[in-house]
């Protein structure tokens, strides 16, 4: 069993190095010395399963932004408490309660999965805890379920997909097949695209929805091939995105343009290799954005975590920026909720994605970029939609 010994020793060393770099170590320090208690920030993120990498990137981005600003919120030290949400919607409320009532956190940051977000929203609407959604794009969170204490620094699923509809028509596509996982994010993205596409005069040949998080796509790829569409629009993310793009190419479908929200290639582009060549995506960020903010952010992230930043890291980074501005305005008094929320609403976030503000429904008003994979690189082709705000249908705020 020398094997196992070697493994565990290496793992321990590796883990030690990570903690030393100030990246890992979710062990909350349990000694509050001094008179100012720490600000408690709860992470409700996936640290296992298909979205584990996304949860890690959000956490990293958040901590990086905080470190760059002296590691404090409103002058107070910060204590992190992380809960693995397992991307399991059924456990969403329970896991949120662990943080909100169990640990009495001041802020909840997360989650990735839209289903978990809806569970979280349900809880914080009752407790009034300030929540910053760092990824999940469920429209309802800043739509019918919007609330003064619920903010989002990412996107709505509609926002990342709607602009692609017009792009598809402009590129001469008349018949498009759409496909995604059968869950909130997938359905909202696909419907957002279909809305933009039909508005511009296109026709949807078929909408295919497969159970989440299944990754066995062969049957549906054969179906797509037999439908002979002009284009295919899909929403997939994480390991499912990696697998879909590879399977799509292997099934001989490369001649049909593949489109989707940027999650289709973000963070998995290298692993997709040649299969991703030519894939068109729309997103509120692109790794290749040539702005001073993005360049310095990416360099700092690389230095801190020895890996490349992605859109999820940006969203984590901006979540910390939003809390930093809000807590700065109330000088660290997290109890002054009304002033804190007012300050967060007025925040202007200098994001690596470009500067953005929040809409009345607390969702970013942001540019959506059109990107394409060329020579293994994500290239920014242009802006698909300028300062796009989610319609926030059903939100009574503002």
């Amino acid at each position, binding site marked *: *069993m020398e*094997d*196992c010994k070697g*493994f*565990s020793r*290496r*793992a321990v060393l*590796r*883990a030690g190095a990570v903690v030393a770099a100030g990246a890992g170590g979710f062990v909350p320090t349990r000694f509050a010395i001094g008179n100012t208690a720490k600000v408690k920030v709860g992470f409700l993120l996936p*640290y*296992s*399963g*298909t979205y*584990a*990498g996304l*949860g*890690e990137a959000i956490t990293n981005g958040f901590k990086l932004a905080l470190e760059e600003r002296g590691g404090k919120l409103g002058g107070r030290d910060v204590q992190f408490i992380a809960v693995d949400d397992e991307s399991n919607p059924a456990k969403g409320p329970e896991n949120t309660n662990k943080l909100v009532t169990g640990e009495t956190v001041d802020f909840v940051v997360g989650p990735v999965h839209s289903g978990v977000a809806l569970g979280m929203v349900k809880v914080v609407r009752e407790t009034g805890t300030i929540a910053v959604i760092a990824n999940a794009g469920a429209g309802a969170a800043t739509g019918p379920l919007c609330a003064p204490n619920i903010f989002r620094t990412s996107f709505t699923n509609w926002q990342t997909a709607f602009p692609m509809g017009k792009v598809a028509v402009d590129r001469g596509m008349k018949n498009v097949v759409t496909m995604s996982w*059968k869950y909130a994010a997938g359905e909202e993205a696909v419907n957002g695209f279909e809305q933009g596409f039909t508005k511009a005069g296109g026709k949807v040949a078929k909408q*295919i*929805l*497969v*159970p989440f*998080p*299944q*990754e*066995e796509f*062969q*049957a*549906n790829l*054969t*179906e797509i*091939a*037999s439908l*002979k569409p002009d284009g295919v629009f899909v929403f997939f993310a*994480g*390991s*499912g995105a*990696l*697998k879909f793009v*590879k*399977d799509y190419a*292997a*099934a*001989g479908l490369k001649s049909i343009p593949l489109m989707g929200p940027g999650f289709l290639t973000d*963070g*998995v582009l290298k*692993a*997709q*290799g*040649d299969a991703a060549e030519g894939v068109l995506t729309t997103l509120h960020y692109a790794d290749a954005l040539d702005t001073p903010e993005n360049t310095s952010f990416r360099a700092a992230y690389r230095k801190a975590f020895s*890996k490349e930043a992605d859109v999820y890291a940006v969203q984590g980074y901006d979540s910390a920026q939003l809390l930093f501005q809000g807590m700065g305005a109330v000088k660290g008094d997290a109890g002054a909720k009304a002033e804190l929320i007012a300050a967060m609403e007025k925040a202007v976030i200098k994001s690596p994605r470009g500067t953005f503000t929040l809409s009345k429904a607390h969702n970013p008003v942001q540019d959506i970029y059109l990107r394409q994979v060329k020579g293994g690189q994500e290239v920014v082709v242009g802006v698909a939609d300028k300062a796009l705000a989610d319609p926030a249908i059903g939100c009574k705020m503002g």
Partner: protein
Amino acid sequence: MDFWFFLIQVLNGVQYGLLLFLVASGLTLIFGIMGIINLAHGAFYMLGAYLAYWLARTTGSLGAAVLLSLPIAAAIGYGIEALLVRTLYRRDHLDQVLLTYGLILIFNEATRMIWGADVHGVAVPAALNWSIRLTDTLSYPVYRLMLSGVCAVLAVGMYLVITRTRFGMWVRAGASNRDMVAALGINVKLLFGVVFALGAALAGLAGAISTPITSVAPGMGDSVLILCFVVVVIGGVGSIKGAFLGAMLIGLADTFGKVFAPDFASFTVYGVMAAVLLWKPRGLFS
């Protein structure tokens, strides 16, 4: 109903079924022969995939990586049997479930520590990275055909080993009457260790050869494990033949369910399981 469309869907289903069989065969061996419910079986699938990914990057060849990952997976399997599983033979299934569930958590966390939480992909070897055109729109990836071939050869090989060789005879005998086999001078401890290692190697092999068509990520073995249990239960515990039929049934049911009844796609597999168990409560061959 287009003939080619139907044919390719059958191919898809058979290929999926063959891969499931490769993972499930090890599970049914351990389950049927040693009476151990091994929840960590999916973890060996994940381990095989990670080893293949890591070795393919170091050696630059997927073939070499797959061959190298086999003995490592087998050795780790043997070690786990000797250290932990050996204590469970005379205990009840609940203890086994508890221990092997703990192993899943340890494996998942260990892979995350060693390889990170990112999703990894392995490129299809250049020689196999093409598709056979069947009609103007439909084609079939060669790598998947090769995969099916490998799985089919292994299935036949395993069947022959279990039914026609001395080793297979010991294994079957050890399963039905352990004390008698020990009395005849066969080292049952070693025999069971080897069977467990073999099961781990089979799962590892399935993980390793499927890396080009799947994503390598922590926890990737969990969903596979559930399907494997379905396959084993349908086929009848301990039966290689049953596991093969069960896997084919599940692969085809899942594929056709997705195309013809997409709204029920998430439970076609369980519907098939329920139907089989109503008809044969102990599985097809038990």
